């Protein structure tokens, strides 16, 4: 793992009081390898390492730790800072209901996350209405209804309406019935499918959500930057959710997506059960990525 690799690297360059260009380049190669193996995007890893390198050059190595530990310490701090710089609380509406819209690629975990978010909010005393504007996926409506039933949450019923109609109807229902929150699930879509991207923008414009969450699979590889950038451009989303982090993927997509969008990671999904949700902890994610 990284600490051992860096210890070995620095062992070969003995007797240095300061971190300089020469002794750090080998160490940076090791860190870069670790980041790439963790699925951090190539360009993001390059920029990140460059930035951290400039911060660590000329730094006096603390007496109590080795140069290797010093480098790791700096990287860890910088990574935690980058991952969780801004406060990541869920947006609230001054006039209920708070409208939360969820979007992302196919199979990333959006529908399951909507139910999880609803349960999470109910534990905080907030009553939410679940709705799905997914008119494409076979049995999408059934899926959300089954999940809704399991947490005693009502799902806005729809039949033959279009995606935008459903969204508007759900917000209307939430307003009339005095819900605190309405959570709108959308169909999975490719960022390069212009019709589907137009649709999700149309939904956004129709209901003006307070919060738009980009739900991304925690195992996503190099492509994370492409979909994240495209969704940001069209939707200007306000938060990120990373799912399936109960697996053993390192989750470098967290750094990639955060770096190219600047939006905060608000939640992580850590299991299939409806209570498997957690607030994002940047320090835990940093340790996971650096291994």
């Amino acid at each position, binding site marked *: 793992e990284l600490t051992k690799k860096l210890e070995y690297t620095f062992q070969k360059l003995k007797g240095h009081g300061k971190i300089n260009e020469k002794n750090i380049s080998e160490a940076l190669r090791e860190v870069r390898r670790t980041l790439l193996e963790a699925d951090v995007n190539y360009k993001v890893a390059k920029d990140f390492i460059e930035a951290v390198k400039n911060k660590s050059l000329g730094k006096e190595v603390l007496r109590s730790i080795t140069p290797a530990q010093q480098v790791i310490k700096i990287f860890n701090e910088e990574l935690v800072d980058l991952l969780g710089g801004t406060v990541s609380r869920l947006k609230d509406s001054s006039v209920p209901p708070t409208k939360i819209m969820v979007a992302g690629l196919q199979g990333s975990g959006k529908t399951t996350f909507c139910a999880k978010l609803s349960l999470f909010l109910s534990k905080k005393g907030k009553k939410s209405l679940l709705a799905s504007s997914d008119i494409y996926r076979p049995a999408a409506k059934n899926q959300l209804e089954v999940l809704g039933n399991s947490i005693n949450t009502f799902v806005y019923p729809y039949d033959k309406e279009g995606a935008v109609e459903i969204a508007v109807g759900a917000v209307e229902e939430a307003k009339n019935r005095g819900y605190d929150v309405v959570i709108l699930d959308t169909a999975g879509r490719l960022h*390069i499918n212009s019709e589907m991207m137009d649709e999700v923008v149309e939904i956004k414009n129709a209901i003006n959500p307070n919060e738009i969450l980009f739900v991304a699979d925690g195992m996503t590889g190099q*492509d994370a930057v492409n979909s994240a950038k495209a969704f940001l451009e069209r939707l200007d989303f306000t938060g990120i959710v990373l799912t399936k982090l109960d697996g053993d993927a390192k989750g470098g997509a967290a750094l990639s997506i955060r770096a190219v969008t600047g939006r905060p990671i608000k939640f992580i999904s850590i299991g299939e059960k409806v209570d498997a949700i957690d607030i994002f902890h940047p320090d835990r994610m940093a340790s996971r990525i650096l291994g």
Partner: protein
Amino acid sequence: ISRGKKFNQEFIENIEEILIESDIGIETTMYLMDELKEQYRKNKNFDTSTVLGIIKKKLKEIMMECNTPEISERKQEKPYVILVVGVNGTGKTTTIGKLAYKYKKEGKSVLLSAADTFRAAAVEQLDIWRKRAGADIVKTKYGADPASVAYDSLQAAISRNIDVLIIDTAGRLHTKVNLMEELKKIKRILKKIKPSAPDETLLVLDAVTGQNSLTQAKEFNDAIGIDGIVLTKLDGTAKGGIIVPILKELKIPVKYVGMGEKVTDLALFDSETFINALIC
């Protein structure tokens, strides 16, 4: 990559970037870069097309090394049993719909087994797909033991003289020991009726997934043995380069690729097409 550039540091970085960003992994990238540097030492007359040619040639070599014999479906006695597995959300159920449609077009009778008894509306989802494909289905109530559904499905396939039986399973992370045990149990129970079953075990991988796909392939293969891979969502921008190390290290071939959400969006894997798309 622009044509006719010289083989300098910037050029090397560009190649490296393209390879890494295809999810082919750092090891394979370094292997290919070493190969390029070696060729450059021998012949300084290098330009873009030379480089691309070498990379494509090397990739083709890796993929050809894994030329496991095509599982000849005709050799197996009826019903031909296909078990479909993979982690959550990769496209198993959708792929089964596409496979059912393909076999129906070939004039075969197809039965689907709704052995995902866990996920919300999984059975309903597969039921809609089987109608689109024109296949039959064996399903049971939510929460039933998946192995017993698989067992009943195989019995039904035999008694109805079905050509192809395709078994859908719940998505599961390879890190969950009990869920991997469940797959082993499904396999054991199928063998009680038909020793060669499952005749084909397909692992469905999402092209968007990074290095974890290699781990998934290793773990699923260790647990129940994988005959072929279906690489889905290749209609997106992800390149799916991870199948190169999977082929190289595990010798598991990619059989199909998923190119969309319609019942016809399934194609046989073609390494030439794949390699060309990988490094464009």
